[in-house]
């Protein structure tokens, strides 16, 4: 290398344009100590404005009277009125019970099916990649489409499922799955599980890839069978990921009334009425924002308590 090259290594000359060039100024700014805070600022402001502020506002609403269809007295502080009403509200207690059923059964089915699918896919069989993509499809379908698709197939007059079940002799006549209080919840849970089990498959597959193959070789040599390996190696190694998946799914199931709103609107009777749906209907149909806010706050607090207890129990903190 010739010495003359050192000239080129000097910074480019400054000019008037250079002094006001926004790109250069941004570059200079990026070298300062506060650069990362600047990068975070837009999203943090946005989240404060559309998440934190509404949340705080929502808490506040739960202590005020707010009925959009009855403007008189709106915004008045009513203390714990909504919460007191809630305690005496049989629909609230029913919704709470239904939420527990809805979440528990959905999670268990989604987890078991998701785990089985992930274990099968993890064998890396020929054609497995295509099957994996097909199995993931439901997860990306909109609730509106998934819901109505199943509503069509389970319809009491034109439902293909009814037809198949009658043909193979499991049913005597077409059944109105969503109109019967005894089957509505179970059917809705089935549709929900169908829609979301791929989430567990996805996460568990990723977790399985992280388990060293040597562990299974060692277990083979030690004479552990398939189920022993599942119980002693696979599940313990997946503990963190399963905990994460369960928490995310519980949050989703408790928070979003979408699918039930589309399938049953809480009916028949109140057999599929869950908390989030009840809160939403109070806001959307009755415009009783104060009571709906109180219901959401209770939901939020219950979720937080659940997440905290669950994390403590499964000790995800440890890793």
């Amino acid at each position: 290398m010739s010495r003359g090259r050192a000239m080129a290594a000097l910074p480019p000359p400054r000019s008037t344009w250079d002094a006001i060039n926004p790109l250069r100024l941004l570059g200079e700014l990026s070298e300062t100590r506060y650069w990362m805070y600047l990068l975070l600022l837009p999203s943090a402001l946005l989240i404060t404005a559309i998440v934190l502020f509404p949340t705080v506002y929502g808490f506040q609403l739960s202590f005020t009277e707010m009925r959009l269809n009855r403007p008189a007295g709106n915004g008045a502080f009513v203390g714990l009125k909504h919460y007191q009403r809630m305690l005496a509200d049989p629909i609230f207690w029913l919704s709470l019970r239904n939420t527990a059923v809805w979440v528990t059964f959905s999670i268990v089915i989604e987890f078991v099916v998701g785990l089985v699918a992930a274990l099968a896919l993890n064998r890396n069989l020929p054609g497995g990649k295509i099957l994996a993509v097909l199995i993931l499809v439901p997860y990306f379908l909109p609730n509106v489409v998934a819901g109505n698709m199943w509503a069509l197939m389970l319809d009491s007059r034109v439902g293909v499922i009814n037809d198949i079940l009658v043909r193979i002799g499991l049913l005597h006549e077409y059944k109105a799955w969503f109109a019967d209080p005894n089957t509505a919840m179970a059917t809705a849970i089935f549709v929900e599980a169908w829609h979301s089990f791929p989430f567990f498959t996805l996460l568990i597959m990723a977790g399985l890839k992280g388990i060293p193959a040597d562990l299974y070789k060692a277990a083979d040599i030690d004479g552990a069978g398939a189920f022993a390996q599942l119980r002693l190696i696979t599940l313990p190694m997946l503990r963190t990921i399963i905990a994460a998946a369960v928490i995310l799914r519980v949050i989703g199931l408790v928070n979003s009334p979408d699918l039930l709103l589309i399938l049953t609107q809480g009916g028949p009777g109140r057999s599929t009425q869950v908390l989030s749906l009840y809160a939403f209907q109070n806001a959307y149909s009755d415009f009783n924002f104060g009571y709906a806010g109180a219901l959401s706050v209770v939901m939020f607090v219950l979720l937080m308590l659940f997440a905290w207890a669950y994390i403590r129990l499964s000790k995800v903190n440890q890793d």
Partner: protein
Amino acid sequence: MAQTRTGSNLIWNILSYAVLIVLALLSIGPLLWMLLTSFKVDDDIVTRTMVYFPTRFTLENYIKLWNQSGYPVLVINSLVTTTLTVAICLFTGTIASYAFSRFNFPGRTPLMLGYLVVRMFPAVLMIIPLFIVMRNLGLFDTSLGLAVAYTSFLLPLFVWMLKGFFDAAPKELESAARIDGSTRIGAMFRIVIPIARNGLVATCVFVAIAAWNEYLFALMLTSSTGSRTWPVGLQLMVGEFQLPWGMLAAGGIISILPVIVLFALVQRVMVAGITAGAVKG
């Protein structure tokens, strides 16, 4: 020993195939049925005896949907809302995600946890105040208002998912670029973002699909055809007409077509991103 091993392996393989094929059929069977239904005439849908394959193949449902139900407007509204959502996430989320991935600074961990905890907030808890705020700001029943509302749960997701992709690019690359004469922002745009390009696309697609599919916020925050999105419109059809299954099916197929195409294009990278984000979360 070797024989029994191969034997039991074979059994497990057969079982695996059985499980996977059943699940795959269960997964796409309903979709296929909807597709089939969308090509049927009404007489084939509502019958005394079930008609599995259309006796007459028709595009009538699609034509009716397109001409009579205002569906094109709904689709355009959804496109606008989705584009706005992705744009907001892209501009504010990319740099935030980069900051979390690259820098260690006081407050980083609590901030990141904050972005995560936001996902736990019940939609209903936020919908009500958002409804009031949007109405006061004149954003109620606008695509922009809806997109901003979507950002509330999609931006944190975007940041976390993208962070996984940024983390995969070694930090030494920026050091090298900075020594080579780049500023930090230069290194970010010239070196790191090009490397994380696939991840960025996949993350955007994920957010786009979520915004495209969303129902609850759209139901609450839109009220007219000026901004109503297709999921709300499709669901309204259920009430408006006497269960127009053929049109519903056609609407469903049209609306999920872009989802399926996008998903197919980037599914591998996207799947990696979802899992990475969730694992770390």
